[in-house]
């Protein structure tokens, strides 16, 4: 029991869960115990979307310094717009819409990789500039019309059992899958190896190029999935639907204990961090903080959590 506890204490994701719990307790202490359950439910609903894109971002960041996907919000929007327009509220076109949206996302992933690999543009610039192209495509394709999702998609994206959203359960399953991929597959090992030392990974006979390619594809695919679900959840696609996810996709990765320097990923930490971020904003709202104060405190709290969780890294 002792060693297990000790090992638990060394997990870098623990910090984000503790922080989330503390924030939640402070909130319900303020409300006198009212609405604790509802807050958790909505944290799960909204946090889930951040987790989906966060997982993709985590894989990209883990492949080493300089790797980041800034095209996630644009890809989400494009995917949502394509899905809604093709489905056109028709149940029969649901699958086709999903396939088309995800295919478009994969094209974005391929384009990102081409910019990075063939044109040797740093990922931060490549994905940022591709977002402009993607977003323009979404705007011209969507033409500002707001189309409702087919009822079954809306149902799937919003339904809850005992306060637990079905989507959250599905994404927990996805997270488990990804954790296994990281730990138990050659692809996962390669991602971790490249992140530590790309040259050594190449000399160890690992397929650096194709794994890097697959990782940018994966991130785009997850953004696409998130775009479809988000559209179902909020009653349609909107051109600004991805805006909040630019910073939050990166923040949950970092707060969750994944190394920004690469080579070390942390799946559960993404969940803790996503819940923490949502609960923090909720708490400040309930406290009646003005938007300015809310932003300042959010920034300060994120710094505090990273500092506490990063103690282990500093000693290295």
């Amino acid at each position, binding site marked *: 029991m002792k060693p297990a506890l000790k090992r638990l204490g060394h997990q870098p994701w623990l910090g984000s869960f503790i922080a989330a719990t503390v924030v939640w307790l402070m909130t319900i202490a303020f409300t006198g115990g009212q609405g604790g359950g509802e807050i958790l439910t909505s944290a799960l609903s909204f946090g889930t979307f951040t987790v989906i894109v966060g997982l993709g971002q985590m894989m990209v960041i883990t492949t080493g310094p300089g790797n980041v996907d800034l095209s996630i919000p644009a890809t989400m929007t494009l995917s949502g717009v394509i899905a809604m327009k093709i489905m056109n509220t028709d149940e029969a076109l649901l699958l086709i819409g999903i396939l088309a949206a995800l295919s478009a996302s994969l094209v974005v992933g391929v384009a990102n990789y081409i910019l990075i690999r063939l044109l040797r543009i740093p990922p931060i610039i490549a994905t940022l500039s591709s977002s402009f192209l993607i977003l323009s495509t979404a705007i011209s394709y969507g033409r500002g019309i707001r189309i409702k999702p087919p009822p079954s998609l809306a149902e799937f994206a919003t339904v809850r059992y005992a306060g637990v959203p079905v989507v959250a359960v599905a994404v927990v399953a996805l997270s488990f899958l990804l954790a296994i991929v990281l730990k138990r597959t050659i692809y996962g090992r390669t991602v971790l190896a490249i992140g530590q030392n790309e*040259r050594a990974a190449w000399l160890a006979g690992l397929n650096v190029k194709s794994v890097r390619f697959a990782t940018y594809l994966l991130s785009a695919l997850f953004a696409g999935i998130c775009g479809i679900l988000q559209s179902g959840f909020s009653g349609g696609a909107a051109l600004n639907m991805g805006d909040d996810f630019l910073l939050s996709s990166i923040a949950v990765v970092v707060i969750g204990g994944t190394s920004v320097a690469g080579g070390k990923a942390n799946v559960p930490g993404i969940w803790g961090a996503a819940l923490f971020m949502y609960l923090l904003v909720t708490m400040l709202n309930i406290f009646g903080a003005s938007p300015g104060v809310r932003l300042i405190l959010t920034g300060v709290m994120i710094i505090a959590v990273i500092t506490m969780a990063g103690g282990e890294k500093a000693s290295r």
Partner: protein
Amino acid sequence: MTLEAIRLDGVEKSFGAVRALAGVDLVVSAGECLGLVGHNGAGKSTLMHVLTGTLSPDKGSLAVGGVTVSGEWSAAASQRAGIRCVFQELSLCPNLSVAENARIMHSPLRGFGWKKRASDLIRAKLDEIFPGHGIDPDDEIADLPIGKRQMAEIARAFTVMSDPLRLVILDEPTSSLDAVTAEQLLAYIGKETAKGTAVILISHLLGEILSASNRIVVMKDGKSVAERPADGFDRMSLVAAMGSEGHGSSSHSTSIVSSTGTSPVLVKAHPDASKTGPELVVRKGEVIGLAGLAGHGQTRTLLQIFSRDHASVEAPMSFIAGDRQSDGIFNLWSIARNVTIRSLKSFTRFGLIDPDAEARLAEEWKSRMAIRTPDMDNNILTLSGGNQQKALFARALASDATVILMDDPMRGVDIGTKLEVYDMIRTEAANGRSFIWYTTEFDELAYCDRVYVFRNGKISDEINAGSISEERILQASFAESAA
């Protein structure tokens, strides 16, 4: 009675157990060009680093212009004393112009119009040394071809501002120069020494050393072993002085006499990526040595074979790095993971790595390589350097690779570990694996069936096990003159 520019008395320097300098006495007189020769590990580079102040000696004293240095000896002090060095690996800032690089060396170039003055300074020197050089002081270093970079760096070393110019060290200065500019440089050395500047010339071109120097010092094993006026040496006697008597015979007795002449050819490569020049051929079960002075294309050839670029390779390969930190280990991982990374495919079922099989493989190689650790799940950095290297050997040998490329892997490894690994290589070669082994140590060539000596990126000699001798390798490593 000539003035002395610099004097070293009994200078010693050790890196851990390695004694790089074992008591060097050296005097360079003002106005003299001293040729310095020696093979890999003779201590030339360490000695130059001591002179330029980037390394401080463990023992011994240094005198500049006849005055013993008493205070702190540092790079800045060396610069003030008028000691300049052109290193083999060029040290100009690639993102700055030629003139700006000149400014880095001369702090008095400040205030209004410094750039103009820096340009004039470096242009005048370039004109003086390399007439018709075609370099504009405003050219950015990165845009210049390697030969012109070297010209700029040499010219910079000879520029004079407030500090006097006492001694210029030229470490392989002609390695990137063509015959004409090399000739210009050698002529300039003659003029500069006539003005009283001392020059130390290090080169693998013995003809250059013999013609440009007044006096030649031969280093070996961290000591100066021979010293004569230049006309007291010829090519043969220089090579003989660099080698030693005992070595040659001992290598024969330990070499493996194998009958690999008829086994299948696994690797064929042209080291200089052209179709001309001698070819490197590796057969099944052979241990092939790559010898010659460091930096003459051995590592590049290994990487070329590894990436199958202008090389035909009929077998899976594995690479054992010599530079563990940059090419080898994954330092966030356990020893086990570092060992198994090359072999994951062999225990992956339905796309999933079998953790038990992985642990078994790690344990097996822990005992086979005698990796000294209580637990293979410990981080790789808990191991000593030698044991980290063993883990890298285990990674390659545990894999399905039948051709193992080794990039001077015994750098900084203790003798006990070395002997264990040599045994392992012999056993594995007997079992049909082939090794391509770049080494900077003569003794290791004794384990090879055939040795290719490299010079200027090309194979300059191919020696079979029976005829491997230090003298023959030295002969092939040092050229008479630039070809």
